[in-house]
């Protein structure tokens, strides 16, 4: 078991027909760190996330969690080791917030949920600040509230178990897309707090400043290829960013001296 690299992608490629979406990508995601995959639309980020999470089988190459090839792990066991938050989950049925979060516990019980499962649901709802809405129907929530409930669901899925604190992986695929800035910061803060719970996070994010703010390790993708890896936001190569995103950048300092990107064409 490799403690510092819980997720390793080796020479991963993925194609559908003639289209090569991911080309020979090798990445190591650092343990208990926020690993951020950046890249313009169509760079292959979402495909790569689904391959890394074991949902898609790579055309060639392999993904390993510790010593195990992810495709060889039994689905229910895999669900105990990693969770995945999608961009937006729409539900057409009047199911309560509590019932949605309980779904995160499905891999943990068969039949009816235990008292512990109920407790985790309760704690997860409190963590995202949705306890008072627990009996409300999910479709009646705003987009930001729905995303908080989905976050509670995936956190409940990989909630730290006191008796077996195994390393777990949390994938966030554009978790804040189309949300108000308040929800964006709130969701990323909560996610980041899970780094202290022996959790490794792998995230894609459109907003480069937000990514730089929250990320520890950056992977820049372009046309299916990995073109740049940076440890810490200070090491993000501006010239590569400019090339990949086809923009020019300037650095601005805020009133506390923190630097932020400003983009223009």
């Amino acid at each position, binding site marked *: 078991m490799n403690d510092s690299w819980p997720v390793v992608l080796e020479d991963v490629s993925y194609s559908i027909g003639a289209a090569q979406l991911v080309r020979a990508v090798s990445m190591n995601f650092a343990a208990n760190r926020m690993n951020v995959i950046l890249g313009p639309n169509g760079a292959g980020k979402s495909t790569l996330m689904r391959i890394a999470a074991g949902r898609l089988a790579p055309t060639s190459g392999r993904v390993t969690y510790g010593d195990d090839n992810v495709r060889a792990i039994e*689905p229910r066991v895999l669900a105990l080791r990693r969770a995945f938050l999608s961009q937006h989950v729409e539900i057409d049925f009047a199911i309560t917030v509590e019932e949605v979060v309980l779904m995160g516990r499905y891999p943990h019980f068969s039949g009816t949920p235990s008292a512990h499962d109920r407790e985790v649901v309760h704690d997860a709802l409190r963590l995202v600040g949705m306890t008072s809405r627990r009996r409300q129907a999910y479709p009646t929530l705003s987009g930001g509230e729905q995303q908080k409930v989905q976050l509670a669901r995936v956190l409940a899925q990989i909630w730290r178990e006191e008796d077996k604190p195994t390393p777990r992986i949390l994938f966030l695929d554009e978790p804040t897309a189309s949300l108000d800035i308040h929800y964006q910061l709130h969701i990323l803060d909560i996610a980041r707090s899970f780094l202290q719970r022996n959790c490794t996070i792998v995230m894609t994010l459109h907003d480069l400043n937000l990514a730089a703010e929250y990320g520890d390790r950056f992977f820049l993708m372009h046309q299916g290829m990995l073109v740049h890896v940076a440890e810490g936001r200070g090491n993000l190569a501006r010239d590569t960013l400019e090339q990949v995103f086809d923009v020019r950048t300037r650095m601005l300092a805020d009133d506390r001296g923190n630097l932020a990107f400003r983009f223009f064409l």
Partner: protein
Amino acid sequence: MLTRLSRAQVYLLLLLCLAVALVASSAIGAFAFSPARMLRFVEEGLGLAPAQAADTLDRNVFLTLRLPRVVLCGFTGAALGVSGTLMQGLFRNPIVEPGLAGTSAGAALGAALLFVFGHSALSYTAPLGTAALPLVAFLGAFAATMLVYRLSTLFGRTDVLTLLLAGIAVNAVCNAGTGLLSFLARDPQARNITFWNLGTFTTANWHGSLLVGVVFLFCYALISRHGKVLNALMLGEDDAAFLGIDPERVVFRLLLVNTLMVAVATSMVGVIAFVGLVVPHVLRLLKSSDYTFLIPAAALFGATLMELVDVVARLIIRPAELPIGIITAIVGAPIFLWILLSQRRVRT
């Protein structure tokens, strides 16, 4: 979520309603029976009490016509209710039911083929005997359902419009086929097809009733274990997969089981639309959209509703009977429109 009743209380209520419906459906009709007489007939039928010669006609009507009809009606209603619930879960949409998704029309086409060609071209089905009808109905139903499912989920999440259009197209093709067959058919077969398309319990016999019952119980046992899976599928296939479910495989299997359940019932009673739509809809309003609750509840409520509609069908133009599919369509179509419109309103 109209009630604050607990699950157990809702189940108890539904059981009570079913019991009342079963007694009413057994007692009411062209021949009416008091509870005491029904009890005596059952005892006599089972050989527990000596038969009274004066009651021979009534007893025969009750034991060989009424009782198998009540049993068939109950199991058919339960099958349609569970099927509608299951299909709404698999298609991730509350407007789906076997009638919409082509399952019933496909089964009807299969059965019509057998009615018309059963004595000539398809005579190799003869060794199958009475199993031939459920079998061809199953094949037709499965082909039609898979076609609608594949079309409507072509672009990931089930799109309502694509689903409706796919359902309309597949139903139209199946109905055209059935229509062509009844055009080609000679009189007895053509009448069979017509009756069958309207749905009826008048032809009930013990053999068919028990077949539907056994198949239903078998399918129900498989389906009822998948409540959590159906809940997870509400999130979409990808997010269900991240919870440790193999969505492609489980959807295919459940569609297969569902088709078996619907096709066998449909092969005995014909096409009865909208029961599969109304049953889960009422239960969702009553308590919850949680499938671990809905599936058992849909079996109980589906049976209850079917018994009550059948009583109406027997009484409304007494002494004749109205085909039951006509009643369910008249009541169900407006409810379908209502659900569709309220769903569109939520969207926009």
